[in-house]
Structure formats: C-alpha cells, structure tokens
C-alpha cells in the first residue's frame, strides 16, 4: 500500500511533463470522415487549377501590355483593359487563400488593396523613387486597383487615354504601368510555384490545431467572406462603417465600376464553390466543408442554411445595377440589403459552423465556458 502512494506521485510528475506531444496517427483504423480528403479536393481541384488559370491570365495581361507599349493604338489599349478584367475576375477565386507564401509576401494586400491612392501613385510616378516590393505604404499604389486607375481613371474615355500614353512626356506613366504589372506577375509566380511545391505537406496537415492546414483554410475562408466580400465589396462602399455617408470611391474597380457587380458575383461564386467542394471551372464535387459539417451535425440543416444565405445574397446582388457606384448614388439601401444578407451568412459561419467544427484556436487556456 505504502509503496503505491509514491508510485502514483511519480506517475503524476512523470506524465505531467511528458504528455503534451502527440504521436503518429494509426491510419489503418480509419472508419470515419477523412479530413485529408477535404484538403486534397480543395487543393487539387480548386486552389491549384485556380492558380494555374490566374497565372496564365496575369501573364497574358503582361503580354498585352508589352504589345501596347510597342504599338500604342486603341485596339491594343482595349486589349490590355480586357486582360486586366479577365485577370481581376479570376483573382476573385484566389483572394480567400491568404495562406502559406501568399501570407508571407503580402500577396493579397499587394494585389488588391482598394481604393488605390491617387496621390501615392502620382507621387511615385513623378519622383520615380518607389519600392513596390518591400514598402507597405505602396500597397495602395499597386495591383489591380492601381491598374484600374492607370487604365480607366486618367482620362474620361479611351481615346483620350490613348492620346495620353502616346504623348512621350507621359512615358513615366507607362513605365509605372509596366512596373506594377511585372510586380504582379512576379509575386503571382512566387505564390503559385509555392503551392505546387508545398502541396503534399499542406494536404497532409489535417489535424485539429491552430496551425494545421484545415484550420487555417477554414479561418481564412470565413475571414475572407466577412472582410473581403461583405465589408470591402459592400459594407465600406455603402458607408455602413462610417458616420459619414456612402463612399463611392471605395467600390472595387471604381474607375471602371460597370464591372463591380460582375467581380462581386464571381467572388460569391468562388465562396460557394469552396464551401461545396466544387471543382474549379468544371463539373464535379468532392469532400468539402459542407460534407464535413454534415458529418459533424449528422444532418444537412446547417449546411443548407449556409448555402441558402449564399444563394439569397446572389439574388440580391443580381438585382443591383452593374455599376455599384451608380447603385450607391441612386439607391444605397439595396447595397445595404446585400450587406445585411451577407452578414446573416457571417453569423452562420462564425457561430454555428465554427461551433460545430470545434476548430481549435489555441489563443489561451480555457475551461470551456
């Protein structure tokens, strides 16, 4: 009996300091939902093809620009503009993956911080002294929004824009245009390559910890839905975050804002596709957050509720003017309606979904209250 007591105390002290490491999973015994399949499906059928497509589009943009630089005519200018929009559309499928290399090189911030700062851009052009790579003050002077300004915002129409670039005195503008585009190509290739290289490691990290792939992906997805989609595309332009009135200038693609609706619909499509695990640009579905939620809740009530919010948001956006700037000026309440509907989605994602998945976020100790 007496020996036993000492023995227990020893156990306590021993186990206490050696228990926190987890060992390998025994994979032979799997008889339940396999989370790695989500990672495989999302990576192989969504992320990688989307990046491939996007890289292609951004390279095409660069090619069209060099064509325009050589031969400055209206056809070539409009080709650059068209390539800009094509790439911007595919970008809507990329922005939610602020993860791995993308996070490290501030990919999202560099590609799509809007509104662009006209004064910063003009200043960079006139001084010629700028660093798009390291200086984060320049996030507002590069990427899609800056191209938006340089391609659509300098003059009232394409004829005047063409004349502007044909004028040799404005060569600095053309140079800046090129610098911004090559920077975009450069970081896109870095992030894109990294996805290919780290695919295997990423896909195998399916455990439930703050730094595992699945948890980061889920958190990023929800963050994008709330911030990138709800707040940036609707909330801020509609003015719901400021005491002053609506801020038309905050519309995505402001200088070519007839395209703003199409961009936001594309973003919603990407969100829906990710949640349901639909293959990028093709038919077919695989394991996804949706199937995982269904497994955890043993019904599809929650996942259907979430998809319904996506669909309802889509309908509301469809009813908007193609040009969000016009929509805000004529009837801002319709913009706010979309914001409210997206907010209903945020609630389901941040409370119900996160609850059910018990995604572990190890900020601090907790005792589950």
């Amino acid at each position: 009996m007496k020996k036993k007591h000492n023995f227990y105390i020893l156990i306590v002290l021993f186990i206490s300091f050696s228990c926190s490491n987890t060992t390998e999973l025994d994979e032979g015994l799997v008889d339940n939902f396999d989370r790695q399949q989500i990672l495989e499906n999302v990576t192989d059928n969504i992320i990688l093809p989307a990046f491939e497509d996007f890289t292609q589009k951004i390279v095409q943009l660069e090619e069209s620009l060099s064509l325009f630089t050589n031969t400055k005519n209206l056809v070539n200018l409009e080709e650059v503009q068209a390539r800009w929009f094509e790439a911007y559309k595919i970008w809507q499928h990329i922005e939610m993956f602020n993860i791995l290399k993308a996070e490290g090189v501030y990919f999202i911030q560099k590609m799509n911080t809007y509104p662009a700062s006209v004064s910063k851009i003009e200043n960079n052009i006139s001084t010629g002294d700028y660093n798009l790579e390291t200086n984060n003050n320049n996030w507002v002077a590069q990427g899609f929004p800056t191209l938006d300004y340089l391609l659509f915002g300098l003059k009232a129409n394409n004829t005047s824009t063409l004349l502007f670039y044909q004028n040799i005195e404005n060569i600095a503008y053309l140079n800046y245009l090129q610098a911004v585009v090559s920077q975009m190509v450069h970081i896109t290739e870095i992030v894109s390559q990294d996805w290919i290289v780290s695919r295997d490691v990423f896909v195998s990290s399916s455990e439930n910890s703050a730094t595992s792939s699945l948890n980061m992906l889920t958190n990023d997805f929800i963050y994008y839905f709330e911030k990138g989609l709800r707040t940036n595309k609707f909330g801020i332009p509609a003015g719901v975050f400021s005491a002053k009135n609506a801020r038309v200038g905050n519309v995505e693609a402001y200088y070519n804002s007839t395209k703003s609706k199409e961009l936001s619909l594309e973003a919603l499509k990407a969100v829906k596709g990710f949640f349901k695990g639909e293959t990028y640009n093709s038919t077919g579905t695989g394991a996804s957050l949706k199937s995982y939620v269904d497994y955890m809740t043993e019904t599809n009530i929650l996942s259907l509720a979430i998809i319904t919010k996506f669909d309802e948001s889509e309908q509301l956006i469809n009813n908007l003017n193609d040009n969000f700037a016009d929509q805000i000026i004529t009837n801002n309440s319709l913009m706010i309606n979309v914001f409210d509907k997206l907010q209903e989605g945020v609630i389901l994602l941040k409370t119900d979904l996160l609850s059910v998945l018990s995604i572990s976020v190890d900020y601090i100790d907790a005792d589950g209250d």
Partner: protein
Amino acid sequence: MKIRITNYFKHQTNAAPLAVFRIFFGLLMFVSILRFCSKGWIHSLYIDPIFHFSYYGFEFVKPLGTFTYLLFLICGIAAFLVAIGYKYRLSILVFFLSFTYIELMDKTTYLNHYYFVSLVSFIMLFLPCSAQFSVDAISRKKSYKMVPNWTIDSLKLMLGIVYLYAGLTKINSDWLIKAMPLKLWLKSKYDFPFIGQTIMQQEWFHFFMSWGGMFYDLSIPFLLIFKKTRSFAFFLVVVFHIATRILFPIGMFPYIMILSTIIFFDAKVHLRILVCIERILQIFKIKTHALNKPIIQIEHYKVRKLSKFIILAFLLLQLLIPWRYLLYPGELFWNEQGYRFSWRVMLMEKKGNSVFKIVNSKTNSFFYVNNNDFLSDVQQKQMSFQPDMILEYGQYLGNHFKNQGHQNVAVYVESYVSLNGRLSQQFIDPSANLMDLKDTFKHKYWINPLKDEIKGF
C-alpha cells in the same frame, strides 16, 4: 452534539499535509506565472488591448501598463516564497492579493481554476502552513509537530465542493441526454493518437464520457475521504486530469487538481513526501535544518480562534454561491446569470457574433463598429456571447463616440449565439439601446430567451 463539535475543533494532527500542500501549491503557482509570462500573455492580454472588461464592483481594478510586469513578478516571487515557507503569512497575503488583482483586471480571462486558486490562497491565509518544513521554522528555530485537524479538513472541503458542484452541474439534459458539448469536442479531436479516428467518433463513447465525467466528479470527494478507496480514487484523479489535459487546452488546471488532492492522504504519506523533497534538496546541497542550534520541536500550534470562524463562514458561502442562479428566471446557459464562480466547467460550446450599431437617435443615421478597432481576438470571442460583457462594451463604445463628438448616440447590438450545437438565434433584443441599460444583479430582461429548454442543474 456541542461536545462533539468542540472536540472536533480540538482534535490535533500532524502538520505535514499542510507543509506538502504549501510546497506543491507554491511551486505550481510559480510555474504557472512563469508559463504565463513565457507565452507572452501579459502583453497580449493586459497591455495590448485598449479596453478591459471589469467585474461588477471592481471597475477600479485595471491593468497597470508596464507595471503589470512588476505585478506578475511580485506574484511569482510570492508564490516561490510560499513554497519555501519564507515569511509565510506575508508571502501568502501578497500572493493572494496580487493573484486576485491579476484575475480581476479583465473578465475575458475568467477561468474557474483561477478562481479556485484565489479561494485556496484566501483559505491559506488563515492556516499554519509553515508550521513545519519551512524556512520560517528554521529561522524562528521552532517547528510545530501538530496542528488542529480542521485546518487540513478545510482544504479538503474546498476541494470537495469543487468536485461535487462540478458533478452536480453536469446533471443537465444537454450533457446527459445529448452528450453535448462533448460529442462535438471529441469528434473534432480526430488527430488524437490511436483512438481519435475510431473510438472517439463513436456515439457510445460520447455518452460514456459524459456520464463517466458526471459520476467521476460526484463520487471523487467521497472516494478520497475513505481510506479504503483513496488510492483508487487518486489513480482516477490522475488518469482523468491527464486525459483532460491532453484533450483540451486547460493549461495548469489538471496539475493543480492532481497535486491538491494529495491532501486527502494521511500524514504518513506526507511525511514520506517531505523526506523525498529533503533528499532532492540535499542533492543541491540545500540544508533543511538550522546550522548551529537545533530546531525546537513544539507539539502544538495554536491557531487563532477568529481564523476558525472566518474559514467556516467562508466555506459556507462557497456552498451557497453556486446556487445563486436559482434567483434568476430563464435558461442559465443562455443568460449566464450566476454562471461564473459555480464550478460549471466544460459544459458549453457557445459561440457568438455581436455587431454594434451606433445610431444618431435624432436623424437615425447609423454606422457599424469594427470590433477589431477596440478588442483583441480573445476579447471579441468572449464578449460575443456573454450579456454583461456585451453591455459593458456597448456602453464603452457609446461613450467613446460621444467623446468623439457624435450626437444623440444610441447603441444597438445585433448579436447571434449558438449553444451546444443548436442553430444560432438572436441573443440580445435588437431594439434595446444599450446606453439606456444598467448592469445590475437584476434579471437582464433584454436578453431574448433561448427557444429551447435545458433541464437540470
């Protein structure tokens, strides 16, 4: 009866359990403070945030800027001095005050086990924990062999209360009939070695753990009291707490409980532990005896009469406090009126989303607040589903924007919460202007009732 009571309070016992308890408690607290610092939590929890959630009546307790580090330093040193028993009374007083101050600085970090530490250190203020085996004993050259038995029993009772209430609160329909929230938590720990993908996904296992946890908590105080079952009970304590440590991010709590329950063993065990500690100290050439003069062994330690009554009243209060929720209408898990300080541990998977709307009540123009501008992630997470925190933060926002020059400020909250796997529902009455409300001990009528019923404690 009266004689029996007086006899009970006269009963003396060896002081070793108190010494062991003091050493383990002090060391664990010392390690806890070190761990807290090393994780960078002093900065992220107390220095970085611009707003802190206060406890009712303790609004004056706020982080001290850079001096917060000093506070932790003092607390850590005090814990160490408690462990070695140096100027014990002063050390434990400083520890109690500094630790409790730290806990009162921000409600966000409320944990039952921090509350437990505060309570235990309060009790220890009145116990002769440095009677034996302490620096004090060496320096005063007096060591006391015996102490009143009730001093040790008071700690046992405190531990018993914790387990018993933790068990009672598990008797509710979510926990026992739905195996919630354990079902969600266990299923989500699929990366747990060996059983994560198999047994832990099984429904029977979720129920087994829920019911097992309830029976464990309810029976463990009794199993620890009786000598026959004590060793087995301690074995259970070790297994249970290690298991929870591996499964859930509950920090130091399991170790605190494991080492605390050693107090239930009789003095012989504790004397042996003291011998072990002595040997360890000898390795480091630390002498546990005075150099020249031998320590005088005194038979009995006299504890002041008042201490006895304070402890008695205190423990009685502890028996009552967890029941205060009965004074409120509505669902306890939802309204959280009387939820804290009552050993309700691991009972809820509750998440919320609360968006605050600042309205000019004359023009009806409004804007939403970005919570990131004011709160840390942890604060947002906790605030989003706790009514008193929603109110406190809402009023802070209202005053903040008033001071910025906004007119006719009214604050509304669009708050949604999901509880134990239920679909989320609106939490706070969206038409309630938070600026018109007051945080009191009265029922918070502005919480929308839960559209479901949870039966039980």
